[in-house]
Protein backbone atom coordinates (compact mmCIF):
# COMPACT_ATOMS: atom_id res chain seq x y z
CA UNK A 1 0.00 0.00 0.00
CA UNK A 2 2.78 2.43 0.81
CA UNK A 3 4.39 1.93 -2.59
CA UNK A 4 1.10 2.65 -4.31
CA UNK A 5 0.75 5.81 -2.30
CA UNK A 6 4.09 7.07 -3.45
CA UNK A 7 3.47 6.22 -7.10
CA UNK A 8 0.21 8.13 -7.16
CA UNK A 9 1.14 11.05 -9.42
CA UNK A 10 3.41 12.49 -6.76
CA UNK A 11 0.83 14.98 -5.57
CA UNK A 12 1.16 16.63 -2.22
CA UNK A 13 -0.81 14.78 0.39
CA UNK A 14 -2.83 17.77 1.58
CA UNK A 15 -4.06 18.35 -1.94
CA UNK A 16 -5.05 14.72 -2.14
CA UNK A 17 -6.85 15.00 1.16
CA UNK A 18 -8.73 18.06 -0.08
CA UNK A 19 -9.84 16.28 -3.24
CA UNK A 20 -10.92 13.21 -1.30
CA UNK A 21 -12.90 15.21 1.25
CA UNK A 22 -14.54 17.35 -1.39
CA UNK A 23 -15.51 14.35 -3.54
CA UNK A 24 -16.78 12.41 -0.54
CA UNK A 25 -18.86 15.36 0.67
CA UNK A 26 -20.28 16.06 -2.79
CA UNK A 27 -20.90 12.36 -3.43
CA UNK A 28 -22.72 11.85 -0.15
CA UNK A 29 -24.80 14.95 -0.86
CA UNK A 30 -25.85 13.70 -4.29
CA UNK A 31 -26.62 10.19 -3.06
CA UNK A 32 -28.64 11.66 -0.18
CA UNK A 33 -30.58 13.83 -2.59
CA UNK A 34 -31.35 10.95 -4.93
CA UNK A 35 -31.93 8.27 -2.33
CA UNK A 36 -32.93 9.71 1.03
CA UNK A 37 -34.14 13.30 0.88
CA UNK A 38 -37.49 13.40 2.68
CA UNK A 39 -38.96 16.31 0.67
CA UNK A 40 -42.05 14.93 -1.01
CA UNK A 41 -41.26 16.47 -4.38
CA UNK A 42 -37.78 14.92 -4.41
CA UNK A 43 -39.21 11.60 -3.26
CA UNK A 44 -41.77 11.58 -6.02
CA UNK A 45 -39.28 12.59 -8.69
CA UNK A 46 -36.78 9.92 -7.70
CA UNK A 47 -39.42 7.33 -6.79
CA UNK A 48 -38.71 4.69 -9.43
CA UNK A 49 -34.94 5.04 -9.03
CA UNK A 50 -35.24 4.60 -5.27
CA UNK A 51 -37.24 1.43 -5.65
CA UNK A 52 -35.00 0.03 -8.37
CA UNK A 53 -31.81 0.74 -6.39
CA UNK A 54 -33.29 -0.59 -3.14
CA UNK A 55 -33.24 2.64 -1.17
CA UNK A 56 -35.83 2.47 1.61
CA UNK A 57 -38.83 4.21 0.12
CA UNK A 58 -42.00 5.65 1.68
Amino acid at each position, binding site marked *: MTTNTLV*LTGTRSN*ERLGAVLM*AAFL*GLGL*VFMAGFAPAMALHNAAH*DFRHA*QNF*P*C*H
Partner: protein
Amino acid sequence: MMIRLVSAALVAGFLAAVVATGLQFALTSPLIIAAERYESGEATAPAAQWMPRGASPASLIVPVHSGHDHGGKTDGVEGGEVAPAWQPGPGLPRMVFTALATLVGGVGYALLLGATLIACGREPSPETGLRFAIAGFLAVALAPALGLPPELPGMEAAPLAERQFWWIMTAAATAMGLYLIAIRRSPIAIAGGIVLLVAPHLAGAPETSHAASALPPGYAAQFAARSLGIAFVFWAVIGLAFGWAWNSVGRKNPATSHA
Protein backbone atom coordinates in the same frame (compact mmCIF):
# COMPACT_ATOMS: atom_id res chain seq x y z
CA MET B 1 -6.59 16.73 -8.97
CA MET B 2 -9.98 17.87 -7.73
CA ILE B 3 -11.01 18.80 -11.26
CA ARG B 4 -9.77 15.50 -12.61
CA LEU B 5 -11.67 13.59 -9.95
CA VAL B 6 -14.91 15.47 -10.53
CA SER B 7 -14.61 15.23 -14.34
CA ALA B 8 -14.01 11.49 -14.22
CA ALA B 9 -16.93 11.06 -11.81
CA LEU B 10 -19.23 13.07 -14.09
CA VAL B 11 -18.28 10.94 -17.09
CA ALA B 12 -18.62 7.67 -15.16
CA GLY B 13 -21.89 8.72 -13.54
CA PHE B 14 -23.32 9.75 -16.88
CA LEU B 15 -22.35 6.53 -18.67
CA ALA B 16 -23.60 4.37 -15.80
CA ALA B 17 -26.86 6.34 -15.66
CA VAL B 18 -27.46 5.83 -19.38
CA VAL B 19 -27.03 2.07 -19.04
CA ALA B 20 -28.93 1.75 -15.75
CA THR B 21 -31.80 3.97 -16.92
CA GLY B 22 -32.29 1.77 -19.97
CA LEU B 23 -32.31 -1.32 -17.78
CA GLN B 24 -34.71 0.26 -15.28
CA PHE B 25 -37.17 1.18 -18.02
CA ALA B 26 -36.98 -2.30 -19.49
CA LEU B 27 -36.94 -4.35 -16.29
CA THR B 28 -38.12 -2.59 -13.12
CA SER B 29 -40.37 0.32 -14.10
CA PRO B 30 -43.05 -1.95 -15.65
CA LEU B 31 -43.15 -3.95 -12.39
CA ILE B 32 -43.39 -0.76 -10.28
CA ILE B 33 -46.27 0.51 -12.35
CA ALA B 34 -47.99 -2.87 -12.19
CA ALA B 35 -47.54 -2.94 -8.40
CA GLU B 36 -49.02 0.55 -8.09
CA ARG B 37 -52.18 -0.70 -9.73
CA TYR B 38 -52.51 -3.24 -6.91
CA GLU B 39 -51.55 -0.64 -4.34
CA SER B 40 -54.13 1.86 -5.54
CA GLY B 41 -56.81 -0.79 -5.09
CA GLU B 42 -55.95 -0.96 -1.39
CA ALA B 43 -57.06 1.36 1.36
CA THR B 44 -54.78 4.15 2.55
CA ALA B 45 -53.34 2.03 5.37
CA PRO B 46 -49.67 2.15 4.32
CA ALA B 47 -49.84 5.87 3.72
CA ALA B 48 -49.33 6.88 7.34
CA GLN B 49 -46.03 5.06 7.45
CA TRP B 50 -44.22 7.19 5.01
CA MET B 51 -45.03 10.58 6.39
CA PRO B 52 -41.86 12.56 6.84
CA ARG B 53 -40.96 13.04 10.46
CA GLY B 54 -42.03 16.38 11.86
CA ALA B 55 -44.56 16.95 9.13
CA SER B 56 -46.62 20.06 9.68
CA PRO B 57 -50.39 19.61 10.04
CA ALA B 58 -50.94 21.05 6.58
CA SER B 59 -48.73 18.45 4.98
CA LEU B 60 -50.41 15.54 6.76
CA ILE B 61 -52.94 15.33 4.01
CA VAL B 62 -50.31 14.97 1.37
CA PRO B 63 -49.19 11.44 2.23
CA VAL B 64 -52.79 10.29 2.51
CA HIS B 65 -53.21 11.22 -1.10
CA SER B 66 -49.76 10.29 -2.19
CA GLY B 67 -50.18 6.85 -0.62
CA HIS B 68 -52.23 5.86 -3.58
CA ASP B 69 -51.57 8.49 -6.18
CA HIS B 70 -47.80 8.74 -6.28
CA GLY B 71 -48.01 6.47 -9.25
CA GLY B 72 -48.96 9.48 -11.30
CA LYS B 73 -52.70 9.28 -10.79
CA THR B 74 -54.15 12.45 -9.31
CA ASP B 75 -57.74 11.27 -9.17
CA GLY B 76 -57.85 11.72 -5.39
CA VAL B 77 -57.81 15.52 -5.47
CA GLU B 78 -60.96 17.08 -4.11
CA GLY B 79 -61.94 20.71 -3.91
CA GLY B 80 -61.03 22.56 -0.72
CA GLU B 81 -58.27 20.15 0.32
CA VAL B 82 -54.58 20.74 0.25
CA ALA B 83 -53.25 19.70 -3.13
CA PRO B 84 -50.94 16.67 -3.15
CA ALA B 85 -47.22 17.26 -3.37
CA TRP B 86 -45.76 17.81 -6.76
CA GLN B 87 -45.02 14.68 -8.72
CA PRO B 88 -43.97 14.05 -12.29
CA GLY B 89 -46.81 13.28 -14.66
CA PRO B 90 -47.25 9.75 -15.95
CA GLY B 91 -45.37 8.55 -18.98
CA LEU B 92 -42.56 10.66 -20.36
CA PRO B 93 -42.14 13.17 -17.47
CA ARG B 94 -41.91 10.33 -15.00
CA MET B 95 -39.29 8.61 -17.14
CA VAL B 96 -37.31 11.83 -17.46
CA PHE B 97 -37.22 12.28 -13.68
CA THR B 98 -36.27 8.65 -13.15
CA ALA B 99 -33.39 9.16 -15.58
CA LEU B 100 -32.41 12.38 -13.80
CA ALA B 101 -32.43 10.69 -10.39
CA THR B 102 -30.33 7.88 -11.81
CA LEU B 103 -27.86 10.45 -13.12
CA VAL B 104 -27.63 12.21 -9.75
CA GLY B 105 -27.21 8.89 -7.96
CA GLY B 106 -24.65 7.67 -10.47
CA VAL B 107 -22.50 10.79 -10.21
CA GLY B 108 -22.78 10.62 -6.42
CA TYR B 109 -21.64 7.00 -6.32
CA ALA B 110 -18.87 7.73 -8.83
CA LEU B 111 -17.58 10.57 -6.62
CA LEU B 112 -17.59 8.28 -3.60
CA LEU B 113 -15.81 5.58 -5.59
CA GLY B 114 -13.18 8.04 -6.76
CA ALA B 115 -12.69 9.42 -3.26
CA THR B 116 -12.26 5.91 -1.89
CA LEU B 117 -9.77 4.93 -4.60
CA ILE B 118 -7.64 8.00 -3.94
CA ALA B 119 -7.95 7.74 -0.18
CA CYS B 120 -6.77 4.12 -0.36
CA GLY B 121 -3.80 5.21 -2.45
CA ARG B 122 -4.82 3.35 -5.58
CA GLU B 123 -4.11 4.74 -9.02
CA PRO B 124 -7.53 4.73 -10.72
CA SER B 125 -7.75 2.43 -13.75
CA PRO B 126 -10.59 0.34 -15.15
CA GLU B 127 -9.20 -2.59 -13.20
CA THR B 128 -8.94 -0.96 -9.77
CA GLY B 129 -12.17 0.90 -10.51
CA LEU B 130 -14.00 -2.36 -11.11
CA ARG B 131 -12.61 -3.92 -7.92
CA PHE B 132 -13.74 -1.01 -5.79
CA ALA B 133 -17.06 -0.91 -7.65
CA ILE B 134 -17.73 -4.53 -6.71
CA ALA B 135 -17.07 -3.57 -3.10
CA GLY B 136 -19.49 -0.66 -3.57
CA PHE B 137 -22.12 -3.02 -4.92
CA LEU B 138 -21.65 -5.35 -1.96
CA ALA B 139 -21.85 -2.45 0.52
CA VAL B 140 -24.84 -0.47 -0.75
CA ALA B 141 -26.79 -3.04 -2.75
CA LEU B 142 -26.25 -6.63 -1.69
CA ALA B 143 -25.70 -6.26 2.06
CA PRO B 144 -28.70 -3.97 2.72
CA ALA B 145 -30.82 -6.19 0.43
CA LEU B 146 -30.15 -9.21 2.67
CA GLY B 147 -32.14 -7.54 5.43
CA LEU B 148 -34.37 -5.23 3.44
CA PRO B 149 -35.14 -6.91 0.12
CA PRO B 150 -35.89 -4.54 -2.74
CA GLU B 151 -39.53 -3.63 -2.38
CA LEU B 152 -42.26 -2.81 -4.81
CA PRO B 153 -44.67 -0.02 -3.86
CA GLY B 154 -47.20 -1.31 -1.36
CA MET B 155 -44.88 -3.85 0.31
CA GLU B 156 -43.51 -1.51 2.96
CA ALA B 157 -43.53 -2.62 6.58
CA ALA B 158 -41.38 -0.91 9.23
CA PRO B 159 -41.30 2.90 9.58
CA LEU B 160 -39.18 4.62 6.95
CA ALA B 161 -36.72 6.19 9.40
CA GLU B 162 -35.89 2.81 10.94
CA ARG B 163 -35.26 1.22 7.56
CA GLN B 164 -33.16 4.15 6.37
CA PHE B 165 -31.10 4.01 9.56
CA TRP B 166 -30.48 0.26 9.22
CA TRP B 167 -29.68 0.67 5.53
CA ILE B 168 -27.06 3.36 6.19
CA MET B 169 -25.53 1.50 9.14
CA THR B 170 -25.30 -1.71 7.10
CA ALA B 171 -23.77 0.02 4.09
CA ALA B 172 -21.21 1.82 6.27
CA ALA B 173 -20.32 -1.29 8.30
CA THR B 174 -19.99 -3.43 5.18
CA ALA B 175 -17.80 -0.87 3.45
CA MET B 176 -15.57 -0.58 6.50
CA GLY B 177 -15.47 -4.37 6.89
CA LEU B 178 -14.46 -4.88 3.27
CA TYR B 179 -11.77 -2.23 3.66
CA LEU B 180 -10.32 -3.99 6.68
CA ILE B 181 -10.40 -7.39 4.99
CA ALA B 182 -9.26 -6.46 1.49
CA ILE B 183 -6.84 -3.62 2.16
CA ARG B 184 -5.64 -3.81 5.77
CA ARG B 185 -5.28 -7.59 5.63
CA SER B 186 -3.70 -8.13 9.05
CA PRO B 187 -5.29 -10.98 11.03
CA ILE B 188 -6.80 -8.57 13.55
CA ALA B 189 -8.17 -6.38 10.78
CA ILE B 190 -9.68 -9.39 9.03
CA ALA B 191 -11.33 -10.53 12.25
CA GLY B 192 -12.69 -7.04 12.83
CA GLY B 193 -13.84 -6.87 9.24
CA ILE B 194 -15.80 -10.10 9.53
CA VAL B 195 -17.44 -8.81 12.70
CA LEU B 196 -18.43 -5.62 10.88
CA LEU B 197 -19.84 -7.59 7.92
CA VAL B 198 -21.94 -9.83 10.15
CA ALA B 199 -22.99 -7.42 12.91
CA PRO B 200 -25.79 -5.58 11.08
CA HIS B 201 -27.45 -8.87 10.20
CA LEU B 202 -27.14 -10.19 13.74
CA ALA B 203 -28.59 -6.94 15.04
CA GLY B 204 -31.41 -7.56 12.62
CA ALA B 205 -33.11 -5.48 10.00
CA PRO B 206 -36.45 -3.82 10.62
CA GLU B 207 -39.19 -6.33 9.99
CA THR B 208 -40.25 -6.87 6.42
CA SER B 209 -43.87 -7.07 5.49
CA HIS B 210 -45.57 -10.37 6.24
CA ALA B 211 -49.00 -9.05 5.43
CA ALA B 212 -50.85 -10.80 2.67
CA SER B 213 -50.96 -8.66 -0.41
CA ALA B 214 -52.91 -8.76 -3.61
CA LEU B 215 -49.61 -8.32 -5.38
CA PRO B 216 -48.56 -11.59 -7.05
CA PRO B 217 -45.41 -12.90 -5.30
CA GLY B 218 -43.82 -13.52 -8.67
CA TYR B 219 -43.68 -9.76 -9.24
CA ALA B 220 -41.86 -9.20 -5.97
CA ALA B 221 -39.36 -11.98 -6.59
CA GLN B 222 -38.70 -10.84 -10.12
CA PHE B 223 -38.31 -7.26 -8.94
CA ALA B 224 -35.78 -8.17 -6.23
CA ALA B 225 -33.62 -10.15 -8.63
CA ARG B 226 -33.77 -7.54 -11.37
CA SER B 227 -33.06 -4.74 -8.94
CA LEU B 228 -29.86 -6.41 -7.73
CA GLY B 229 -28.84 -7.21 -11.29
CA ILE B 230 -29.28 -3.59 -12.34
CA ALA B 231 -27.38 -2.41 -9.28
CA PHE B 232 -24.46 -4.66 -10.20
CA VAL B 233 -24.35 -3.38 -13.78
CA PHE B 234 -24.69 0.20 -12.49
CA TRP B 235 -21.68 -0.23 -10.23
CA ALA B 236 -19.61 -2.13 -12.76
CA VAL B 237 -20.06 0.62 -15.35
CA ILE B 238 -19.26 3.29 -12.73
CA GLY B 239 -16.02 1.53 -11.81
CA LEU B 240 -14.83 0.75 -15.33
CA ALA B 241 -15.82 4.16 -16.67
CA PHE B 242 -14.27 6.02 -13.75
CA GLY B 243 -10.92 4.32 -14.30
CA TRP B 244 -11.09 4.93 -18.01
CA ALA B 245 -12.19 8.56 -17.68
CA TRP B 246 -9.60 9.33 -15.00
CA ASN B 247 -6.85 8.28 -17.37
CA SER B 248 -8.25 9.96 -20.46
CA VAL B 249 -8.86 13.21 -18.58
CA GLY B 250 -5.30 13.01 -17.31
CA ARG B 251 -3.85 12.37 -20.76
CA LYS B 252 -5.62 15.27 -22.37
CA ASN B 253 -4.48 17.64 -19.70
CA PRO B 254 -1.40 16.30 -17.94
CA ALA B 255 -1.05 19.52 -15.95
CA THR B 256 -4.04 18.61 -13.80
CA SER B 257 -2.35 15.55 -12.42
CA HIS B 258 0.42 17.68 -10.97
CA ALA B 259 -1.41 20.93 -10.35
